[in-house]
């Protein structure tokens, strides 16, 4: 149509390029937005001392329950006069630590177990999968509470409870994809070449199942942030006066009739982190699908 006119052809070309860029952006948007959200949260929690001059546990008896937008306290203060913004920034360190600490350990352990189970097969696989099924029968949250109850409420014991129970999903995902990969030509070829099992598992199968694991890890990270906060809220995780977000919501619950901001803002912080991880997971899944 525009072939006769060079300037129109150029316009077409430019339009096509813009459209392509738009498509790429649309596909990458969740990844970018999620990444930016999380990076922002990490930066502001790590750089908390540069952003606020208050100590998160510093009591100010003259300024209790100051509403948001009070000069000097943009998100207000709690019943002890502690600055809410400072507590959220410092508390974020704990909640992010829970997200990364709980997720990374279970990811590594669960993936290793699933890879081994699927690769070896036979009675080893059958036994491990029965154990996995067994853990799935329990309401996860109830089992975590029960383990924390026996060990005693603390952040460390919360980690132990999550580590003991959360590897199962990773094991199940990795095992399923390992079984599939075992039938693929590249694995058969690697074995035909006489490579050792360990090399086939780690160098040939693992890279191909890892993307599925990482996508699930993002969902799991959301779950772990919510779980850590829920345990803090119930008094079974981080303990007061810790500014962990769940603990802050629990403290604020006593003041919902008079001071709504105590419980509201830490909850919004949790939502931001959760949405960040969710978008990151969605974005990674999109890219994986596009690659197929």
């Amino acid at each position, binding site marked *: 149509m525009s072939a006769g006119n060079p300037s129109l052809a150029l316009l077409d070309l430019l339009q096509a390029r813009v459209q392509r860029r738009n498509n790429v952006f649309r596909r990458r948007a969740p990844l970018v937005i999620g990444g930016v959200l999380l990076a922002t949260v990490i930066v502001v929690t790590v750089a908390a001392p540069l952003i606020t001059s208050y100590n998160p546990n510093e009591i100010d008896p003259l300024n209790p329950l100051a509403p948001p937008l009070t000069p000097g306290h943009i998100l207000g203060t709690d019943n002890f006069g502690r600055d809410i913004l400072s507590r959220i920034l410092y508390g974020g360190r704990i909640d992010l630590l829970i997200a990364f600490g709980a997720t990374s350990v279970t990811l590594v352990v669960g993936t290793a177990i699933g890879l081994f189970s699927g690769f070896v097969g036979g009675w080893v696989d059958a036994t491990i999968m*029965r*154990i996995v*099924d*067994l*853990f*799935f*029968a*329990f*309401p*996860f*949250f*109830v*089992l975590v*509470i*029960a*383990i*924390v*109850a*026996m*060990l*005693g*409420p603390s952040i460390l014991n919360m980690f132990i409870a999550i580590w003991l129970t959360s590897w199962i999903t990773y094991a199940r995902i990795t095992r399923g994809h390992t079984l599939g990969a075992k039938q693929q030509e590249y694995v058969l070829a690697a074995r035909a070449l006489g490579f050792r099992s360990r090399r086939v598992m780690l160098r040939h199968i693992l890279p191909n199942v890892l993307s599925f694991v990482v996508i699930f890890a993002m969902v799991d990270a*959301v779950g772990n942030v*919510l779980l850590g*906060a*829920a345990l803090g*809220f*119930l*008094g*079974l995780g981080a303990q007061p006066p810790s500014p962990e977000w*769940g603990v802050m*919501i629990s403290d*604020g*619950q006593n003041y*919902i*009739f008079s001071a*709504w901001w105590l*419980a*509201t803002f*830490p*909850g919004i912080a*949790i*939502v931001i*982190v*959760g*949405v960040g*991880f*969710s*978008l990151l997971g*969605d974005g990674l899944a999109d890219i994986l699908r596009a690659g197929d």
Partner: protein
Amino acid sequence: MGRYSFLGQRILQTIPVLLGITIITFFLLRLIPGDPARQILGQHYTPKAGAELRQQLGLDEPLWDQYGLFMRRLAHGDLGDSINYQQPARTVIFQRLPPTLFLVAYAAILAALISIPVGVLSALRKDGVFDQVARVSFLIAFAMPSFWLGIIFILIFAVHLHLFPVNGYGDGFTEHLRYLFLPAFTISLAFSTILVRTLRASTLAVLSTDYVDTARIKGISRGAVLRRHVLRNSIISLVVVFGINLAFLISGTVLIENVFGIPGIGRLLVDSVSTRDYTVVQGTTLVLAFFVVMVNVLTDVVHAALDPRVSAG
């Protein structure tokens, strides 16, 4: 394979799972650091009471005999005694079960009422405005701590608008419905984030099948195709997802009972942690896990009844 042998096989399959559950809950008490008898008795500890409890729990016996003792007691419905309530743990737990069951059922019904229309409409107009809005809303809802959302609902609907009570359980069926609406709605929103995603995917799959095309070509109206094929399949997949995620639903209920002060098993569990009532914690875990396994069998049977392809293997 006939329908009855499917049922029989499904029940046989649960036996090793139930046994495994007893093993895990048995080992729970052994996680207690130090002397369990001293920890369990707490301030009630005296050397004499400690020795009695050690004998009662068989703590001096080999582990295998201890488990045998645990199982013999369980066979008689004995979950041990609650130190805090000075009653058998079973009595304490079963007293607290009705509010929890009511709440679980209420939340499940609300979740179905929310997720069937949203999931099906999203799929019918894939990538349309409604679909986009629903996906973003549920993305945010998925990241919301349900205990926090519950507090926000109390703030808006109970404190400011006076539409619902702030907390409690009420007396009689209609009061339960009113008192438990906010907690059930909170749980159902969290549960719906999972249901909607699956329903949307399964409805999209049904819409692209040949039998839906065939039905349309035969001249059957769009509405009739929706009712007869799309909705029926959606409900079947809802039953399956419900079964798979029942454990998640129970977890949500345990948490939310503590926000709204509902005297159910979740409150009991958390209270028992703070009073170090270990036998009640152990018993609650066991009862809830058994419940999940039983309802899973039930959902499989319902699934087989709704969808003949299942029991045909």
